[in-house]
Every structure is written in C-alpha cells, then in structure tokens.
C-alpha cells in the first residue's frame, strides 16, 4: 500500500505539470486568438493575410508535428527551447489558431446596428471594439473557449513524447517500474477527466457571471 502511495505521488506531480502547461498554453492561446481573430477582420489586407496564414498553417498541421518541429528543428536554426517552452509554444499557437476563428465568428455575430451605434456615438474603431463590440462578443466566445481549453488539456498529453514529465509521462514511468498497467493508466484517465470537468464547470460559472446585467441586451 505504501508503494502505491509513492507512485500516486509521482502521478500527482505529473498532474501539476499538466495543469501548469494547460494554464500557460491557454494564456498564449488567448493572446494569439485575439491577435489573429481581430487581425482577420482588419481593414488592412496585409494584416488579414498574415492572420489567415497563421491560422491555416497551425490548423492544417497536427499539434504533434508542430511540437516535434519546435523541439527538434528549431535548435538547428539556433533557437533551443526546453521541453516546457516548446510545449507551451506549440500548444498555445495551435489552440490559438482554432480560438482565433472563434473570436472572428463572435465579432461577426454582433449585429450591424451595434456598429452603427458606435458610429453614431462618434466612437473610433478601437473605442467601439473595446467598449461595445468585444464585451458582447466575449460572451458568445466563452462556451467555445471552454471547449478549446479542454482540447488544449487533452493535447498536453503529447508533450510526454518530448520527455516532459506530465501526467501521461508519469503513467509510463509507473508502468515501466511496476509492470502494472491498469492502475497508472486508469488513474491518469480519471484525473484528465476530472480536470476537464473542472474547466467546463469554471467556464459555465464565468459565463453566468458575465451574462449578469446583459439580460435584455442580447437578442
């Protein structure tokens, strides 16, 4: 029994790394999502083209390939990353590309009358975006962002393949040390599921909070 608790400690350490990766990846993804999402509705062709290229590139190749590319190829062009940095970079850029489309869709889903109202109030483009469009669009984005965060959490398991000691990696360690397979993999699956439940619960309560005071405003 004492043995198992030791191995459980190992798995919990892995869980901590997974949570860390998910948080950092989410922050990067959020930044990229807004940059690229707003970039795609920009007035300037060059900005739109850049944003579209970024989104298509990162959605078109798999996260696994991107991670390996960041970890194995970038050192050859003089950019050495630790596994954690490579993981956060690949995860954030990949999920950010998916989330950018969510941002774009949400911004476009806001009715024309809101834009007209911005013009009528003599708000600049950025002022209108900041005070009128985004606060409403954010609520539309939130549920899908929750799904994206869960996708990111699931994608973190891939970093175990570049030797970062996350949940999946620790499960493999426990498997090779004990020869037992059911216990490490079943417990890791359960932990991932609980983390996913926590994310979806957190996003739901955030959504409720943000929807407060907007009743009747939204169609």
């Amino acid at each position, binding site marked *: 029994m004492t043995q198992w608790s030791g191995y459980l400690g190992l798995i919990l350490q892995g869980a901590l790394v997974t949570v860390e990766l998910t948080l950092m990846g989410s922050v990067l993804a959020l930044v990229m999502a807004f940059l690229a999402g707003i970039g795609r509705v920009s007035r300037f062709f060059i900005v739109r083209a850049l944003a579209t290229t970024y989104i298509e590139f990162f959605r078109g190749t798999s996260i696994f390939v991107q991670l390996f590319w960041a970890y194995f190829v970038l050192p050859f062009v003089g950019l050495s990353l630790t596994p954690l940095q490579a993981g956060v970079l690949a995860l954030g850029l990949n999920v950010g590309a998916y989330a950018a489309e969510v941002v774009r869709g949400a911004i476009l889903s806001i009715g024309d009358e809101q834009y007209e109202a911005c013009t009528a109030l003599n708000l600049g483009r950025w002022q209108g975006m900041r005070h009128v469009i985004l606060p409403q669009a954010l609520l539309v984005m939130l549920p899908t962002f929750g799904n994206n965060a869960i996708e990111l*959490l699931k994608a973190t398991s891939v970093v175990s393949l570049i030797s970062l000691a996350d949940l*999946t990696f620790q499960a493999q360690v426990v498997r090779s040390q004990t020869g037992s397979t059911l216990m490490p993999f079943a417990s890791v699956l359960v932990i*991932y599921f609980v983390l996913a439940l926590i994310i979806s619960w957190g996003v739901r309560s955030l959504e409720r909070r943000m929807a407060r005071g907007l009743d009747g405003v939204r169609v």
Partner: protein
Amino acid sequence: MEWDWNFVREIMPTLIQGVKITILATVLGSILAAIVGLAIALARRSPNRAVSRSVGWFAEFVRGTPLLVQLYFIFYVLPDFGILLPPLVAGGIGLGLHYGTYTAEVYRAGIDNVPRGQWEAAKACNLSGHHTWTHVILPQAIPPMIPALANYFIAMFKETPLLSAITVLELMNQAKSVANSYYRYVEPMTLVGAFFLVISLCSVVLLRWLEHRYGRIER
C-alpha cells in the same frame, strides 16, 4: 543547417511507406468512428434510461480524456485481460472510439433535424421501429451531416501521428527513425509538416464540395 535535396530524395521512399500506413489508419478509424458514432447516438435515444445514461457518461468520459492515453490503455492494459492487438489495429480502434464520441453528436443533431412529421408518417404507414430507422429517418438524416462527419475524419487524420507512440510505423514514426539514424531533423520533420499541410489544404476543397453537394437541406 541548410536544406539538402539529395537527402530528401533519399528518404522519400521511407516516408511514402509511412504515408500509406497513415492513410490506412485514418480509413480504419473513420469506418469505425462512423459506426461507433451511430451506435452511441442510437443508444442515447434508447427508452431504457440505464442504457442511455451509461452510454452518455461513457461518451463524455472518452471525449474528456486525451487520445494518447486511450491509445496507451488499449495497447498496454488490454493485453493483461488477454486481448492482444497488433499496433495498427489498436490504433484504429483508439481513433475510431475517440472520434466516434464526436461523430455521435453529429448523428444526434442530424437525427433531431428530421421533422416530426416524418416520424408520424412512418407510424401512420405502420412501419416497424427498425423499418422507420432504415427507410425513413436515416436516409434523410445522413446526407446533410456528411460535411460535418468529413470534418471529423480530417481532424482524425491530423491525429494519426499519435499512433507512433504505440509503435505503429506511420509517417511520423518513419520520419523520426530516419531523423535519428542520420541525425538530420530539418528535412524529415519539415516534410511531415508539409505533407499534412498539403493534405489538409486539399481536404478544405473537398469539404467545400461536400457542403455544396450535401450540405443543403431541402424541405
């Protein structure tokens, strides 16, 4: 480190071997996902609450946990229970099961989209439950959901590199072994990325066509 075309030519045959396995795994997974998705969608509509609830939770669990860990589970844990699968089959089952829980939602939406009148008409024609499904509901429900299904199959295609973790010799694994034996990462990894990018850009065209062909619902 500069790009070496001779090396590219040298490793091409190995990579093409990998491409074949990648496509085979995708086809295997897609067929399974199409079947599993339908089975889950039908089971969730079952009048027996125990069945619909437990299948619902199972699907939720599979969707909330990473594919990589599920692959490990199938590959390492099942042999303990006497089910020994070759890597490619284990990979196909993993992909099919994981994406089956996603396609189940597509089926659910497609079935819900069939108007109530069709159900009533089937009843009025004295069709049995089985005949109602095979002759009335599914033929109307499936064509509009083909683009959405194809979307998931393409997503699955991009996840196939994960199979390299359970020793399937698909594209990513071939590239990795080539890279390790020559200690040149730039060409193999970039080619893998380019390959996935090309396929997914082509699949965008295919999706547009499918949407054009099947996406509209005629009422």
